[in-house]
């Protein structure tokens, strides 16, 4: 295979890549102009035909989502951009926003035109201070250049883009939690239906898309849907519900590797290739014991599953929740899975919004149990209890409103299933990672 040339990251690392001037020199906003010459429905069709699936984690086909908007709605219709990138070990949106903000903004402009929205809200993770400054500057540049505002390029299309700094919580990245937070409320996910495309921000039809999706939209308009479809993995013929995993994807590599970072590759690369060819191999000459395929809520790949292709279906076939954000975290063979799992549980106990009972109490309980195991006070039955608690949470069994608790439960179920001997050994030998006195029972 010839060396893949990055498209989404093509301008990253070049001098002044964040400025409008350099962006336009590279052909920036030509795609937007091209879109303005098309009918909105044509733009939607282009994106739909390209097979683009949302890059935020769930992988819902973007073009299809756009068609869920009510037909001939008098408006307003909103586009909300989910830039609340808070899945641990995920940082691809941040690179796009900081290094090439105009690529994202052009994607937003094109998408707004396609869905006939006159206002886009970018919900930015609070902690991303640099992204905030860069993105705001880029937006200001666009207003000054007449790319945003009234009657853009004489087409009669109006667009306002608002950058909103988020409320610093993981749950703000859930699409309806994001909408609530954007409205100035507590980010408690809404009950669905109605889905945001019918009733979203300010009770108006709203599309929520990810930053990376927007960058893909921009490139689909520039390079065409056929280019997009030439990359990645076609649908699995044996699975009628598979929409395929087309296009380039930003993979984040972190954890125990020699060269962590973000790389752009066609969908379907395996975890082993990512670690060895792009991450410089596992550090200190060790072996990988487990790899998180896409943010810790997706579960774990064991050492024998590293050849799983990281497309939208691959991780699911080996018991993971899905591709998620495609942020792999490598765990070397000297690390205790009990500690890894404790860290996961602590995160979710801290981030559960507290609306639904199973998630609110279940995440905290699992954290308490793992704390106790790490204090050397674990019992074998705790493993079954953890599995039972994890199984009773989430929208998959139907016990919660949003998917946070599925994500909270999955690594627990997954780790205990795949690494049970290690947990049993840890408990039976009475190992202690922490001294009881050092351990705080509170999640904070």
């Amino acid at each position, binding site marked *: 295979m010839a060396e893949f040339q990055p498209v989404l990251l093509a301008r990253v690392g070049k001098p002044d890549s964040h400025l409008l001037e350099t962006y336009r020199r590279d052909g920036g906003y030509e795609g937007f102009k091209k879109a303005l010459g098309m009918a909105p429905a044509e733009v939607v069709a282009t994106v739909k035909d390209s097979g683009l699936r949302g890059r935020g984690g769930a992988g819902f086909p973007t073009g299809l989502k756009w068609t869920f908007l009510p037909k001939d709605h008098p408006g307003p219709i909103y586009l909300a951009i989910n830039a609340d990138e808070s899945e641990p070990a995920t940082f691809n949106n941040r690179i796009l926003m900081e290094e090439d903000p105009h690529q994202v903004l052009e994607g937003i402009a094109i998408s707004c035109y396609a869905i006939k929205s006159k206002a886009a809200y970018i919900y930015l993770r609070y902690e991303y201070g640099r992204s905030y400054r860069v993105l705001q500057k880029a937006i200001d540049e666009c207003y000054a250049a007449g790319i945003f505002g009234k009657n853009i390029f004489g087409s009669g299309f109006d667009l306002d883009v608002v950058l909103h700094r988020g409320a610093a*919580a993981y749950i703000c990245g859930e699409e309806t939690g994001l909408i609530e937070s954007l409205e100035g409320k*507590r980010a*408690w996910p809404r*009950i669905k239906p109605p889905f945001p495309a019918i009733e979203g921000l300010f009770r108006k039809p709203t599309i929520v898309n990810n930053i990376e999706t927007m960058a893909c939209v921009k490139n689909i308009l520039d390079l065409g849907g056929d280019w997009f479809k030439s990359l990645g993995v076609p649908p699995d013929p044996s699975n009628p519900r598979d929409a395929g995993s087309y296009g380039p994807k930003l993979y984040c590599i972190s954890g125990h590797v020699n060269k962590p970072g973000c790389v752009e590759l066609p969908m379907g690369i395996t975890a082993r290739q990512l670690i060895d060819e792009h991450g410089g191999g596992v550090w200190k000459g060790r072996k990988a014991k487990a790899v998180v395929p896409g943010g810790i809520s997706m579960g774990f790949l064991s050492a024998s599953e590293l050849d799983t292709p990281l497309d939208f279906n691959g991780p699911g076939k080996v018991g993971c929740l899905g591709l998620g954000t495609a942020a792999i975290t490598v765990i070397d063979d000297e690390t205790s899975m009990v500690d890894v799992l404790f860290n996961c549980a602590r995160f979710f*106990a*801290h*981030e*559960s*919004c*507290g*609306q*639904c*009972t*199973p998630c*609110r*109490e*279940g*995440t*905290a*309980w699992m954290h*308490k*149990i793992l*704390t*106790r195991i790490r204090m050397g006070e674990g019992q074998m039955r705790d493993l079954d*209890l953890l599995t039972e*608690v994890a199984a*009773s949470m989430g*929208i*998959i*069994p*139907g*016990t*919660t*409103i949003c998917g946070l608790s599925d994500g909270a439960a999955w690594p627990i179920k997954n780790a205990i299933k795949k690494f049970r001997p290690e947990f049993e050994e840890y408990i039976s030998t009475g190992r202690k990672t922490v001294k009881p006195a050092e351990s705080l*029972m*509170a*999640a*904070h």
Partner: protein
Amino acid sequence: MPTVIVNNKPVEIGASERLNCIQAAERAGIEIPHYCYHHDLSVVASCRMCLVEMGDKKPDGTIAMQPKLFPGCQTPVKDGTVIVSDSQKVRDAQKATLEYLLLNHPLDCPVCDQAGECGLQDYSYEYGRGYSRLQEPKNIKPDKDYIGDQITLFTDRCIMCTRCVRFTREISGTAEMMVTSRGTHEEIDIFPGEPCNNKLAGNVVDLCPVGALCSKDFLYEQRVWWLNSKNSVCPDCSTGCSIRVDQNKDVLYRLKPRENPQAQGSFMCDEGRFGWKYIHADHRLKLPEQRADGKVVSRDWDAVLPAVRNALQDAMLRAPGKFAVVVSPWATVEEAYLLATYARKLSPTARLVLGPVRTDGEDDLYPKDVHGQPATPTRFTIRAEKCPNRRGVEAVLKQIQGSVIEFNDLLDQVVRGDVETLYVLGGDPAGWISETDAAKLDKLKLLVVQDLLASAASARAHFVLAGGAWAEKDGTFVNHKGLAQAIHRALRGPEEARPDGRILLELAERSGMFNAVSLRKEIATAVPALAGLAVGELGEFGVLVNAPAAAELQPA
């Protein structure tokens, strides 16, 4: 008719009805346990107690079940919907939810006010697992003893159903309450410096399905299983909220709103909720009194009542045209009827006067918007007219006399000397006569005051008859829109105080005991405006007094 199948039991729903699973199951007589759902509040589907299995019955009779569980409160039903609430899967989910809810619950039932009427206790008993598998320490959250003047919060008992938060946002519109922190550390709280003191605040205590929000007024007063309850009607404004009177050993402990869609809905205001304290006040009239030359001659009902009767008859011989009776709008329909007919029997020209109707400002509509102005749609009204039965009393007086004489006109007539004999049936607990007005009564040759509290008028009376408060008698109140509701005798009055109906019955020498049901039937014939009372038993929800509507509103 659309048919829903609940646990294999078909139940029909109205063609245009929009019901959720909980409501549909209720029609089938099946309870789906729930905490956060309340039919007057928005649906949040967060407690996850009402999870059910759902499916669809296809036209060919096969049933396709969905693989996951659904919250019953959030999921609407339609024709062919299949609800299963008793399968093993649902039982397991209920068990798990209850275990979660109890994880950090202190289990301090022995000292908790809610014990005995607690959603956690009831559901744990029915659906729970009986023990907890938590080995770690529970979260301990600080109690907040000042949520409002009347409300205290036992934070660690809370199950985060957010009913209280939604109430203050959606019904009172005052939005004092909120959720603070996140996840398992979440707590209910008020915004700093904004205590929950709105006029509907007490309802959050009723809405709380557990013992977290408690009423300071009732706190540690009684175990609820000692309380005896009687249905009644709040006497504090003309809305006529349906309520429950909770008493033990003739001591009233609390009033609770009783749901009545025809009257007020599900709630009541704090004015009514805490407005009953006069019932046990020291200045209650406890004994009848017959006075002569400023001295008490007798305190014995058996002597006083005949003396009143004789005195009235003497007065009629002297000046039958100068006799008036005052019926307070706090009196029941039955009392108004007994007194008015008795007065007309004594003297066909007896003047029938409506007692002072106390009003306070304007009707107070809820919810309020951010500026404190009423917002639409109105969810609750505290009415300016502070008496419970003006319409009922007026209907009786108008029927007998043709019109109603205002109390101020009567005072003028007394001053002019047109009235020499006056019988007053009081009842306004806030006092119905000022010292200046009472002084005008000095001109009377005979003044009989039947009331529950001592007043400037009772101090001047020749006869004082110790009557009963609303909670001590049977009768009928007709509210602002003509809904007749029954009040019931929940407790005995202090010492020798008697229900007013009984006093009037004996005075009029009518045979038998006071019986509100048979009296209502008599009134329905005598007063066409109150024809709806013909049903006798007014039931839980009352009847509209104008006849056509009455029959269909009578619950089956």
